[in-house]
């Protein structure tokens, strides 16, 4: 998946996460995490984000994550939304999203 603009989704309200993704000129994946549960879940959140990026075949991105105690499924949802927005994709490959 190729990112053509900045994709942003989510909010800073409690239990949500604000995620912003954009291309990385360095062609790697860089995750910037800010979380109120950093100590406990920081590693987990980073791994989750890495995993989802891999699933969605994104190898170059700068991902800004401002987490407000979101559940994994919320992080997934927001990241996925941000990625599709960044890629300008509006036709979703539902079959692949099982």
């Amino acid at each position, binding site marked *: 998946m190729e990112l053509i603009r900045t994709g942003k989704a989510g909010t800073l309200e409690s*239990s949500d996460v604000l995620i912003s993704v954009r291309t990385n000129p360095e062609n790697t994946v860089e995750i910037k995490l800010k979380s109120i549960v950093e100590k406990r879940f920081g590693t987990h959140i980073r791994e989750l984000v890495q995993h989802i990026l891999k699933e969605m075949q994104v190898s170059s991105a700068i991902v800004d994550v401002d987490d407000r105690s*979101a*559940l994994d499924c919320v992080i997934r949802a927001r990241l*996925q939304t941000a990625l599709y927005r960044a890629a300008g994709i509006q036709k979703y490959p539902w079959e692949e*999203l099982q």
Partner: protein
Amino acid sequence: MKLRRTMLYVPGNNPNMVKDAHIYRSDSVMFDLEDSVSVREKDSARFLIFHALRCIDYEHTETVVRINGLDTPFGRDDVEAMVRARPDIIRLPKTEKPEDIELIDELITKVEKKSGVEVGSIKLFAAIESARGVVNAYRIASSSERLVGIAFGAEDFVTNLHTHRSKPGTELFTARQEILLAARAAGLHAVDTVFSDITDDEGFREEVQLIKNMGYDGKSVINPRQVGIVHSIYMPSVQEIKTARKIIRAIERAEAEGSGVVAVDGKMIDKPVVDRSRHTLELARASGIYLDEIEEEESNA
């Protein structure tokens, strides 16, 4: 016996509300992808509900998703996503004619097949929100096997009628009746519209009492406070419970003995009465009434 006394509206783009929706103990929660989500956030809400349904255990609460109509740019994607997320029910807004239901039924079947979901497992609710819908109520109600209920949406309805909602609700009377009749004739549930003034408890109670008397199975609610109120109004009286128990016991005895006609207190018991008794007992259970205690009371009497 499924109870649908309360269907709690949850805006589909709000994780805080979505993740805890079931803690208010409504019979159903309705995740909304339609009116409470702005156009530019439809994709966001869709993914949120998609993932929430797949990951969060809503326990005994029935899950409903109100999708966008198929005439909008979002409807189809909503169905593609939601079928794969497997809510109990998909609710179609602004249903006007049976063809609307047929169309979505077909689409759901298609996606069920594509995605390996058991065909027919996802049910439908039709929301009727216009004059046309009301006039077509019975035809809508009988248009699909998937349909399990009809909901009435008064806000859009009164706009369609060129009037507004009033306290006595006269303008809604016929629509309410029609929808209820259609539902009963087709063997479906009927759920009444939302009451938006959350500060008017008195008015809310009156309305709930009214629709309960009419025969409605329940009401759409927009605030957790309303859930408790509806449940207490739908709670059967002790007398109703006793009568119901009597009837069910008589039926059970008759079945065990293999006898045909059953009479209780001199009156013949037919199927509608049995169904209603079962419903009453279900309501009792849901209201937290311990039926054993009532039985004890009876035997001591």
